[in-house]
């Protein structure tokens, strides 16, 4: 894999006519769309930890976007990045990163975001018999011990919107659920699509007890670009187009929405 980055390349001459095409010299590898995602990639965002398979919301979105921008399916190259690599300074070996990054104002200082393409609801997850299973208000919810996963916007949500103090913070979703099963925490809050998948497939013992209102600070999911990446405009165009086409809605229905109605707690 080439270590060269877009910024390192000598600016020979502005090939303005190539910009906005698949051979755009501003691409990490002209002719290819290089996309980063997490390791592992979580379902239902990307199914089976296999982005190339095209099954899942995020990779589905990427392939639709690539097609819109003019790339063939084979021209989409996936790389794996840790959370820290995604946000660290310095040259990035990809064009953009997609792993449920929430767009917030304070993050904009160090990365560039695309437009928001999906705004998930939050779900309360708990296990049968816990103190908050029948909670009807934020006040009820506050009675339990809460946990959250680092790197997500869930922690600030629990602290700032629900108003819980002393939230335990785990390294990954697996840890959070492990603590839930061990009864070390009573509840956690995660994005509804993830919650649906986990409670259905990985941890059937856990249940979604409610959905919660949106966080005004959390603008929703966006693609992450290296600060100053000139591709943002072009790719935003593509995103807008596929949103307008209804592709995103279709993917949402396919992967991110459950069939059962869930109780809403909003105060």
């Amino acid at each position: 894999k080439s270590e060269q980055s877009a910024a390192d390349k000598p600016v020979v001459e502005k090939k303005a006519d190539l910009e906005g095409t698949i051979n755009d010299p501003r691409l990490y590898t002209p002719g290819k769309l290089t996309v980063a995602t997490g390791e592992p990639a979580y379902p239902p965002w990307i199914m089976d930890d296999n982005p190339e398979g095209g099954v899942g919301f995020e990779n589905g979105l990427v392939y639709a976007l690539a097609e819109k921008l003019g790339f063939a399916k084979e021209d989409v190259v996936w790389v794996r990045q840790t959370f820290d690599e995604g946000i660290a300074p310095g040259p990035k070996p990809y064009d953009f990163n997609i792993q449920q990054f929430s767009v917030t104002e304070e993050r904009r200082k160090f990365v560039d975001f695309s437009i928001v393409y999906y705004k998930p609801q939050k779900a309360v997850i708990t296990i049968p018999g816990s103190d908050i299973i029948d909670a009807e208000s934020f006040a009820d919810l506050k009675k339990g011990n809460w946990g959250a996963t680092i790197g997500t916007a869930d922690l600030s949500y629990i602290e700032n919107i629900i108003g819980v103090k002393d939230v335990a913070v785990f390294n990954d979703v697996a840890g959070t659920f492990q603590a839930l099963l061990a009864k070390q925490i009573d509840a956690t809050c995660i994005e509804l699509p993830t919650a649906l998948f986990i409670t259905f497939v990985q941890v059937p013992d856990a249940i979604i007890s409610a959905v919660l209102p949106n966080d005004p600070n959390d603008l929703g999911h966006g693609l992450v670009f290296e600060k100053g990446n000139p591709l943002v405009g072009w790719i935003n165009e593509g995103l807008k187009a596929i949103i307008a086409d209804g592709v995103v809605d279709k993917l949402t229905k396919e992967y991110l929405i459950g069939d059962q109605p869930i109780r809403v707690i909003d105060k």
Partner: protein
Amino acid sequence: MSLKRPAPPRRAGRTLSAKDKYGPTIISISTVVAVTLIIRAVVIRSSQWPRIKDQFFNLDVIIEVFPKVLHGFGINMAVWIVALVVIAIWALILAFFRSLNGPWFTPLKVFSIVYIDLIRGLPSLLLVLLFGFGMPALRIPGLPKSSLFWGALAMISSYSAYAAEVYRSGIDSVHTGQYLAAKALGLSQVQTLFHCILPQAIRNVFPSLLNLAVALQKDVALLSVLGVRDAVREAQIYTARTFNYSSLIASAALFLVATIPLARLTDYFTKKDRQRRLQGA
């Protein structure tokens, strides 16, 4: 050029020349200046520096996040102090078991060797997960559920294996003659260990023990996989939210404030102790 011991001969009958007096100071200052200049030239002049500075060394962020990190640091300190005490004792028992001989003590000796090899060889993360998630998950009545408790226990188990080996090397470095003398005076094995061997052993390995103590304080961060919010975790939470790493500097500063005085202080006492024993009654 002269190693620490023996003390270098004082040049009797000669006073220090101006060269000897001011040379070192001049060297020190010019070294510092040179290094600073090189860093300026190479790092700060880099076009990327402002960005790095902002993401890693942002003073506003450090100040903003400080109260939270300080709160987390309280956990580091609390776990640290309790763990230090337990480790000091448990590791000593392990080292003692290891040094036992004679057929009747084989089980204890073997236990100690297996314990040390196994626990030391396992990644601490695994131990923390097994203890911290596994034990409470068993829901065995009568056992505590706190993940902090079980996680700390995992850390203690792990560090005790290391500390036991340090003790052992200290014990082994004491000369055989000292054992003979203690035995000949009629001291029991335990008395020999406590009065004759350990004081010399611990003195010999003190820096290694301090190493472990310093590492442990920071390794309390491992408990964060269990949801414990120590100083490092608080800093990471901030980083995850804002993508700004300067919060880690805030936690680092706290660790330094705790460990550097500790290191300097023990050095000072070690030196005084040696001087006391070797010179001037």
